[in-house]
């Protein structure tokens, strides 16, 4: 009985880990897609309304139910902090914090970080072009991750269960 319970625990732990891994991957893909949509929205707002970034970010972050509210809240808090950092520093801090929380894939993180180094320093056409280009890069990455994700999820589930079974066999 004890052996049976032990085996069950090991199998459950391996299964849970594989599902946790899968959910992390899904969160990363979702965050990539949401950031892509946000960058497109920022690009269009700048192109058509010329709204300064701090007020645009404050306005968007006020909607707590928005998919990227956490990213915008990080950015807004950093920009309004006592140190008043430059936009590129605030952007990098927000990307890193949001990336850690939402398991943003490294490639997506580097695209968004690179965007932040030049943000807010050019005319509206260049700004909108940069934002929309970065949005498209993220959208393509999200699509690629989705395609790879289905296979990866099946592999993770199978490997998790097989690992559990292997440990149980060894222990028995």
């Amino acid at each position: 009985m004890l052996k049976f319970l032990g085996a069950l625990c090991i199998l459950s732990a391996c299964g849970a880990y594989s599902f946790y891994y899968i959910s992390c991957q899904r969160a990363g893909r979702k965050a990539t897609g949401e950031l892509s949509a946000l960058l497109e929205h920022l690009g269009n707002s700048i192109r058509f309304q010329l709204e300064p970034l701090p007020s645009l970010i404050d306005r968007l972050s006020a909607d707590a139910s928005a998919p990227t509210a956490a990213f915008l809240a990080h950015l807004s808090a950093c920009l309004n902090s006592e140190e008043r950092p430059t936009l590129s520093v605030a952007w990098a801090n927000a990307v890193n914090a949001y990336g850690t929380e939402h398991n943003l894939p490294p490639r997506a993180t580097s695209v968004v970080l690179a965007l932040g180094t030049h943000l807010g320093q050019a005319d509206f056409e260049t700004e909108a072009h940069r934002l929309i280009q970065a949005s498209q890069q993220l959208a393509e990455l999200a699509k690629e991750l989705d395609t790879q994700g289905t296979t990866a999820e099946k592999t993770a589930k199978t490997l998790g269960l097989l690992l559990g079974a292997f440990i149980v066999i060894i222990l028995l």
Partner: protein
Amino acid sequence: MDKHKSSLLANLTGTYRNLLTPLSFSGLEEIRFRVGRPVMLYRGDGFSYVTPLGTETDQAEQGKICTSAELAALTSALCQHSVYAHLNDIKDGFISLHGGHRAGLSGKAVMKDGAPSGLSDISSVNLRIARAFPDCAAPILPHLMQGGRPKNTLLIGPPNCGKTTHLRDLARLLSTGYKICIVDERSEIAGSREGVPQFDVGIQTDVLDRVPKSVGMLLAVRSLSPHILITDELGTDADVDAIRQAACTGCRFIASIHGDSVEKLQRTHPDLLKCFELAVVLGRRGGHPAIITTKELTHNA
């Protein structure tokens, strides 16, 4: 902390806000940041330097030296990290700030089609501190009114003698009884930022911001039907033509022009003077802007 000081500091980066917070802003007119040189304060009676500890000194070598990175960060903060939203101002070499303050910029001009389209490598920033002087134009009012209507009035004076301040105060004082329209080509009179005048320009005052005077004056009389049009720094033939055309609608004018005296203007701008009935000459007395004289002009528009 007084209102002007806190509104100015709110526009700055943390480095310079912390540096300037301990200082007294009394009588302060300008703060200059130049790459590789110390931060300087200009008051009506002279200048001084700011030490890294935020105290004033008259020794240049003790001053806090500005780095190019600090100046780049300051410029970015002044335009709210959004150059695209202030590009029209930057082309003209300044940024309008919250509180009516203004940052003058110098650096490498970016030329496009023979005209400056922006600035890069910013090498100095001049923060001009805005202060309203309520009722400074009150002594002009008794000379200005004739038969219940204001005369077409021209304020004459050299730079930095309060022409814009007097125009702003006249707008505020007259707007209790008249519809006023300010044609503010360089956002100096109303200090508009994001469409909101940063100075009190009166309850019945409309502001046409960042529009060329000659275009704005005609636009105003056609669409806003003002009793009085206020604008600054007249000088071109197009301005005179616009005033003549707008005068046909019965609108009155209050404007300013660079100069020292009516006599000199009669030689350099005779056509312009013919549009006005009253000249007010401004200057500085004891280091402060003051009304030097008022003069009725014999020729009417």
